[in-house]
């Protein structure tokens, strides 16, 4: 694991983290993850790629404090994460997590209302967040009246209003078509630049990881471990047009070289890895 380069702070870290799930009666426990060591640098965009079932989402949930690690330590802003989601951390999930009974506006205001923020401040932050996510015209709509991509934007807006310093995204565009995913990627980059937050993105899409990230962690098949951390070297100001650059092809090629064998392993074709 590379140490944080000069001038960069470690924002969150996992050290020797493992996760083992108890097996069903009569079955062995399932070793899902680790040991994993990872340091996220303040303000970076980090993506995690890996074969299906390698423990990517488990890693995210442990970092968020939603799940507890079986062993190892997790820290966020130098404080241990244990059993509770720390303040300053926002999570966007793959599934539609919008509240169907609330309007888009009320969805976005949900967290602020809970925290007792004054109404005028809620209005300002929600309006700003909806405008940023292009949802102003749909503020009074209900999630069921929106497309999948827009609903995901509602969830991002709900996270954004809380001004998280670390944003964890668990395959947020997994259910969207390729074009929408590229456009959502642009929005995500805009959001990242504007908030200055550290972003950890879990994705199965190599192109998405290569386009969005400063660094990409490549995980092995279960139990997931980091095989490589790829530095993309993209400039801070970037967008989806970089998919046309030669460097983009090199990065995705390098990721695929790592993942091909691991994906075959996870699918049970271990014998084909040498071919």
């Amino acid at each position, binding site marked *: 694991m590379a140490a944080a380069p000069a001038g960069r702070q470690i924002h969150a870290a996992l050290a020797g983290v493992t996760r083992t799930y108890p097996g069903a009666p009569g079955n062995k426990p399932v070793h899902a993850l680790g040991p994993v060591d990872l340091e996220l640098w303040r303000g970076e965009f980090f993506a995690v790629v890996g074969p299906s079932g390698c423990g990517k989402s488990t890693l995210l949930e442990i970092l968020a404090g939603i799940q507890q690690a079986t062993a190892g330590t997790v820290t966020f802003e130098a404080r241990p994460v244990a059993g509770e989601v720390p303040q300053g951390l926002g999570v966007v*999930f793959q*599934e539609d997590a919008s*509240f*169907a*009974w609330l309007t888009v506006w009320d969805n976005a205001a949900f967290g602020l209302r809970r925290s007792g923020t004054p109404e005028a401040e809620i209005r300002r932050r929600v309006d700003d967040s909806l405008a940023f996510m292009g949802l102003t015209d749909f503020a009074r709509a*209900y999630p069921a009246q929106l497309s999948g991509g827009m609903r995901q934007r509602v969830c991002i807006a709900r996270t954004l209003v809380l001004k998280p310093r670390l944003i964890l995204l668990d395959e947020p565009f997994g259910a969207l078509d390729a074009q929408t995913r590229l456009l959502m990627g642009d929005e995500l980059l805009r959001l990242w630049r504007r908030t200055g937050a550290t972003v950890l993105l879990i994705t199965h899409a190599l192109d998405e990881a290569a386009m969005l990230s400063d660094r990409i962690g490549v995980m092995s098949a279960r139990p997931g471990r980091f095989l490589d951390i790829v530095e993309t070297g993209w400039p801070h100001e970037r967008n989806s047009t970089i998919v046309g650059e030669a460097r983009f092809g090199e990065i995705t090629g390098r990721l695929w070289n790592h993942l091909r064998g691991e994906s075959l392993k996870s699918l049970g074709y271990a014998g084909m890895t040498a071919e």
Partner: protein
Amino acid sequence: MNAIGWIRLAVIGAAVGALELASRSGLIDHRVVIAPSEMADALVRLLISGQANGQIALTFGIVIAAVLISVVVGFALGAAIHALPRVRQALEPLFATYYAVPIFIFYPVMIAIFGLSVIPILLMGVLTALVAMIIATLNGLDRIPRVLMKVARVHRMGRLQTALRVSLPAAAPDLFTGIKLAVSYAFIGVIASEFLLAPAGLGRIISDAYSDFDNRRMYALMLLLIVVATLVNMALHALDQRWAQRRGIVRP
């Protein structure tokens, strides 16, 4: 009103019109079924006279009480059973067969225990409606997407906050279905019990009118029941449709 609403109204209008015609023309013996217009006239006169108002208030009061008890107790039991998977496994087959048992066989037992009063009637209303609410609560809690529980954790919500602000609204469509069923079943349970044996109430005076060959009174009270039950169900249905539309749930 949309086209479907007009079709529905036309079907009801045609059925009432056909009955009116059949009764007035003598196709149906007037001593057996009176014309709907006559039923309505008798009902208006009965309500104005105030003769049956006490009985009507009593019955609807018992129905409302039975609905409230069934909904509150049914929800509490459903939530408790949902939290105890082993208890649920043991009880679920019983719930599945509950409505296959004619619950009214217990009515004499209730009368033997509580006497000929409103209590056995109320209990029959509750017994008829309760399990529908328990089943609806179980279904509602089962269908809460797990991701919403994770969102609640991300927002650092406690158990009570999660229950009130996430679980309850997420389960609301199924809970509302339970309430709709509880209303219908409570109506049936209370009226049928009164009809069988009761010191007072709408079911009892319908039964008395039947025994006395007082067709006008009997049909007037039956019409009142049909109108009230239909209006209550229509109101609940409209509310359900409105909420379902917001949530993107397609209801027939």
